[in-house]
């Protein structure tokens, strides 16, 4: 993975994907190190997806779902929040900074928030430096 601040953004197709599209449409020009993976709901994102993203060389992970209390699937975004918290704990246990993963709630219209979160994570990752797990680490 080139660069030192690759961000994997798991984006809910009901909100975050649209926000990302809109950010492009209105030319918000955010850092190009983010890779959006479309999911049907933030609740689809498994802790394992987050861990494995780091194993595969991501430097940061964003989980982006609907606004609080406005989840298309009622509890998906709150579960995602809890899982991100859990992932933080698991990563810390493994010696990886918990700040590299973050839950974001946004509405489909919030293009600015999408761009801002990507920029903020990029800045944070610059501060933290690359993860120590470059080149995928040893695989099974």
């Amino acid at each position: 993975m080139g660069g030192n601040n690759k961000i994997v953004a798991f984006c809910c197709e009901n909100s975050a994907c649209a926000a990302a599209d809109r950010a492009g449409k209105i030319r918000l020009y955010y850092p190009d190190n983010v890779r959006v993976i479309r999911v049907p709901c933030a609740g689809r994102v498994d802790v394992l997806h987050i861990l494995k993203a780091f194993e595969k060389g991501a430097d940061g992970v964003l989980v982006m779902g609907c606004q609080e209390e406005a989840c298309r699937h009622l509890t998906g975004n709150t579960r995602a929040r809890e899982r991100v918290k859990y992932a933080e704990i698991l990563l810390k246990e493994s010696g990886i900074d918990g700040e590299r993963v973050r839950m974001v709630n946004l509405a489909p219209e919030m293009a600015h928030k999408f761009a801002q979160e990507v920029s903020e994570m990029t800045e944070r990752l610059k501060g933290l430096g690359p993860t120590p797990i470059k080149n995928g680490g040893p695989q099974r």
Partner: protein
Amino acid sequence: MQVKIGIFLCDCGGSLRNIDFPKIRGNLEKLEGVAFVDISHNLCLEEGGKALASRILSEDINRVVIAACSPELCEHNFMRLLESLRLNPNFLSIANIREQCSWAHKEDVTGKALELLRMAINKARLLQPLERKEVPVNQEVLVVGGGFSGMESTLELSQLGLRATLVEKGSALGGKLSELEGFYGLGASPKEMLGSMTRAIEEGKNIEVLTSAEVTRVEGEVGNFTVRIRRGGEEFPRSFGAIIFATGYRAGILPRDFELRPSVNIISQRNLIEILQAPEKLERKPETIGFILDVSDESSRLATLLVLNNALAVKEKWGSEAYVFCRNLKVDSDGAEKLYREARATGIAFLKFEKKPQISEEDGRVKVEAKDVLLGEEISLSCDILVVEEKGLPPEGTEALSSILNIGLDSQGFYQNENVYLYPVDSGRKGIFLVGACRGDLDISRASMDVASAVMGVCELLASGKAIVEAEKVRVDPDKCRACLTCIRVCPHGAIRLVRVNTEKEVAQIYDLACEGCGICAAICPAKAIDFEGYTDEQILAEVEAIGE
């Protein structure tokens, strides 16, 4: 079947200039299983589509990867195209190189576009076909609650030719309609309205009314609910395809908000209506009447409308002086502004407080002391009667019913809707709708709107007598399932149940028609027994894997 991928790059009429398309083609052509990489300028136009179709057919590919604009815009059309070519529509994978790449960054983004394509290709290799199938649905509808919303729902359903069964707890229909003095903006008094609605229901086709009846259990899923109804000590099951809940609200005054108890002179809106309807009980006409709103927090639309109606009624019937103490009057419901103006015009005074007024009783009168923030003056009013606000509370039994239905309650104890902005009358469980005041504070015009959207929702689901589903899009592997019930407990749509697969084994099974495809179950299953075609763990991780390759 060997994977044979056809890749179509669309440069959006040549407008995606910061992407070097030939370079991408050169890079991708070498990948295993890639039959060809085409560059097109307008896949979304007719000729573009035609070209795409002929390439798919001539090269006999079985996976289609498209790099174009947002899938929100194009996915549906491409899927239909694949279907018309007898290719499973799930064999499509899209890379959004426009909104999330070319348009999002200023500099050369060929590298990023290439990565997005690799992600899409990796996913495409793993896609499995999804079959669509038809399932029959029961066309009978249950309506619970015989107040305005329930009656209205029943009537509309019957007009659309759907059979409706209306279940009412009380011995007669009407709900709050039979209790209210007036409802502005309906062009008729509540009593007249109730009369005409009752007649219409009696005369209506395809309508069955069960009074003094209650729902005790709801099982099954959309298209096939089994509901147990208790009536007169007897309980019986009935089958329905959809259910509309219109259980209304319960009016309650909250004396603890006032730190004083209701008395002869401090009465509720309901008491006032009773007096208005039977004025002979009154010793003498009250000369001064105070109304008070917003004491504990800001009042609801419902409470505001009630106060405005009742203040106008006392003015009209008795000619009393009427004063309304309030913090912020809610006039955003239908006709409320006009009602307020009318009240002002007839001489009803509105006093706006910020600090809670002091209320005391002396010599058979009620004294209200407040600081009016507009006048900037301390006001002391001695009135014959003080009418306190009424709050809409969830009706009794809401909690019990919510657990029967597996539908959450909001912080106020009302039914919690699915996303209130996107799907206001949906309950989270497909085929169960919530209308009117049972989902919170609503006035009658909003309730009518609710009824219209719920009835439309019911029609969409049931009108054709069948539904088309993607079979086993989300699927439980019966060998891996440990029947731990986790998925059943977490499914926000109540779409999973336990079924017996043989004499000794029970496993979770997803009901395709009720499943809304969120994937929460797949992410939480501790046995990794659930997968979600299109978003399987493997497919998601294959996308991750492509990053930085």
